[in-house]
């Protein structure tokens, strides 16, 4: 008997149809982007802001949201915290969808999408390029996530023999599934280094970029697990998983303290602490961002609050906002390519991103209803 169950139930619920509508609208703009008008027709991208929300939200932030599988894999398989195991499969599914759609987001942001395969040809590779590492690593990781999630599909199909062989080698994919995000999530930070002066000094920490990016990715990974588990409990009326999440809260506290120490340590070492209080837009955003990092720390420091589902959810949401804002601030909001350039995403641009998110949520809902993803409650 599998430890997992399909949730079942009607697929075409009202929320599902609303998501479908959003996705349908985005299809119209995708058609315009790929067939009739080009990128300029649907987006406000320009010569100074070559990367807008498609890169910064869909890829840089979207894949961090998709780090739940990665963060849990570290906890369960590296630190042998088996008690979190029931959370792994839904988290892997969310990661698979998040990354797959991040990959898709990268595709429609690709100016020369019809020759995307050029990045996979070894004779083209430039080993100095951070982007090369990100591109290849993310592509391979999507395949690894698919393998990690394959058992759910094989169980559904009743392919016992195949499932058994896969389980024999699964540890290899799990190991890769920890290594690859470590590489590309840190590299997403390294992308900022070469942008030099365009990145605001409060975020331009040069060679410390990969460490901060990795720490926020893992933090966001654990937070999304808190968020997902709480939402699923409410949305699908399942038994609360708070007892498991409490422990995650404790892990988050440790990571969060380490992150803040590194971040402020680096700024102090680079002599930039004064910029925090400069009173300009960047300093405002920096303070706002760090308030969002500190609120969950305060919440989670207390064991009583850690045991409350609602407090855990608030902490998780704050951290997701904080991590997103960290990346938005660095890549877009305080990004300054020089005089004459401004950027705010256009409506079609936003609609395409919303469409991608809607599709991701729809796929998640369908899959948890059809495939054995959620842990059986009596085992929990």
């Amino acid at each position, binding site marked *: 008997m599998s430890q997992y169950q399909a949730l079942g139930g009607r697929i075409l619920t009202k929320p599902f149809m609303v998501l479908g509508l959003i996705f349908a609208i985005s299809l119209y703009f995708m058609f315009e982007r790929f067939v009739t008008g080009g990128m300029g027709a649907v987006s406000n991208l320009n010569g100074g802001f070559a990367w807008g929300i498609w890169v910064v939200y869909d890829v840089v932030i979207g894949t961090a949201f998709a780090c739940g599988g990665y963060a849990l894999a570290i906890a369960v398989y590296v630190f042998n915290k088996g008690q979190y195991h029931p959370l792994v499969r839904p988290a892997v599914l969310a990661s698979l969808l998040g990354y797959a759609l991040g990959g898709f987001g990268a595709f429609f942001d690709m100016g020369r999408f019809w020759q995307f395969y050029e990045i996979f040809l070894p004779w083209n590779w430039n080993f100095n390029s951070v982007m090369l590492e990100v591109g290849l690593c993310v592509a391979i990781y999507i395949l690894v996530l698919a393998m990690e999630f394959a058992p759910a599909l094989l169980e559904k199909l009743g392919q016992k023999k195949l499932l058994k062989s896969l389980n024999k080698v699964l540890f290899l994919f799990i*190991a890769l599934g920890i290594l690859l995000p*470590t590489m590309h999530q840190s590299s997403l930070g390294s992308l900022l280094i070469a942008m030099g*002066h365009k990145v605001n000094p409060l975020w331009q920490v040069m060679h410390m970029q990969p460490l901060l990016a990795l720490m926020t990715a893992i933090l966001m990974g654990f937070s999304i697990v808190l968020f997902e588990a709480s939402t699923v409990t409410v949305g699908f009326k399942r038994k609360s998983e708070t007892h498991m999440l409490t422990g995650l809260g404790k892990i988050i506290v440790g990571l969060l303290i380490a992150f803040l120490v590194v971040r402020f340590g680096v700024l102090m070492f680079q002599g930039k602490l004064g910029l925090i209080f400069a009173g300009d837009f960047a300093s405002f955003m920096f303070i706002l961002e760090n308030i969002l990092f500190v609120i969950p720390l305060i919440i989670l420091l207390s064991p009583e609050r850690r045991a409350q589902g609602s407090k855990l959810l608030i902490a998780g949401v704050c951290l997701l906002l904080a991590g997103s804002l960290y990346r938005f601030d660095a890549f877009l909001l305080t990004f300054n*390519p020089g005089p004459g350039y401004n950027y705010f995403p256009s409506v079609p641009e936003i609609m395409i991103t919303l469409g991608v998110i809607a599709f991701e949520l729809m796929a998640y809902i369908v899959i948890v209803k059809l495939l054995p993803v959620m842990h059986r409650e009596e085992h929990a």
Partner: protein
Amino acid sequence: MKRRNFLKTSLGGTVTAAAALGGTVLSGTAQARENLEPAPEAVGMLFDSTLCVGCKACVTKCKQVNDMPPTIEGDHTAWDSARDLSGDTLNVIKVYQNGTSATKDAEIDGFCFEKRSCMHCVDPGCVSVCPTTSMQHNPITGIVTHHPETCIGCRNCMVGCPYNVPQFQYNEVFGQINKCQMCNQKGVERIDNGQMTGCAEVCPTGATLFGPRKLLLQEAKQRMTLKKGDIYNYPRGDISKPDNYYEKEVPDYKQHIWGEKEAGGTNVMHISSVSFDKLGMPPLGERSAPSVAEGVQHTLYSYLALPALALAGLTYTVKQNTSNHDDDDGGES
């Protein structure tokens, strides 16, 4: 089955995690490589803002050489109205204005012209960040070229360029990145044929001067030593074989040769009597940012040694932590 076996301590896990994350921590002490040096026979241009009269002959010539359409604004069809670089404008003349704009080359109540085109960096960011080697740096001439046949359009070159030079043709479904290639791209090859760049050739005042970087730098340094009001013999065209010279009064040069050292230096250098931050040049130090990025990348990924080590440790630990939980159902993962 219940897989709550806590016999294993998390010691193994801690070690592996340290290995996996260690690489990143190491980057904290990563030594960035040095800036690249100028190519041995680097060619470039010297733009003397004080000589530019804003005729924009260079803009028109550039469009002819590169077969690009003029930018028309309103009813002004007599000249190219491009205001900045774009997918089909590789060279543009911008105007600086302050206060009453009465005096040419005065920072206050004055005006002057500034050229924008690829600076052909000695240590180019666009080349460093391009995943598919679609931006290349000629090792002899130092010219930075673009090769759309392998480009995926990720536009990292655009954000990685301190000057926002590479520009994408956003208004086409099948667009490409464009930038100045010093008139030496396939099918043009003016430099290989012993000619000079189009913009330098048509410049009536020698504001855009073509030639070997060494000679241009020498010339720029000499102009820095001139006294305001003296008469100097300005060359036109190619500095190694000027078409002709003309005498002109020396302006009040700022003691700054842009591109001598900025971010490792550029092959296209600028001098001016208005400070460069006012002319929209970026706040650059001497260190090139890509050299730091490459230092981090190579520390972490040299021969994939660290990732391989981390993978070995992770595989071992994961195997340890899953093997004693296997049940008949194989419900791991």
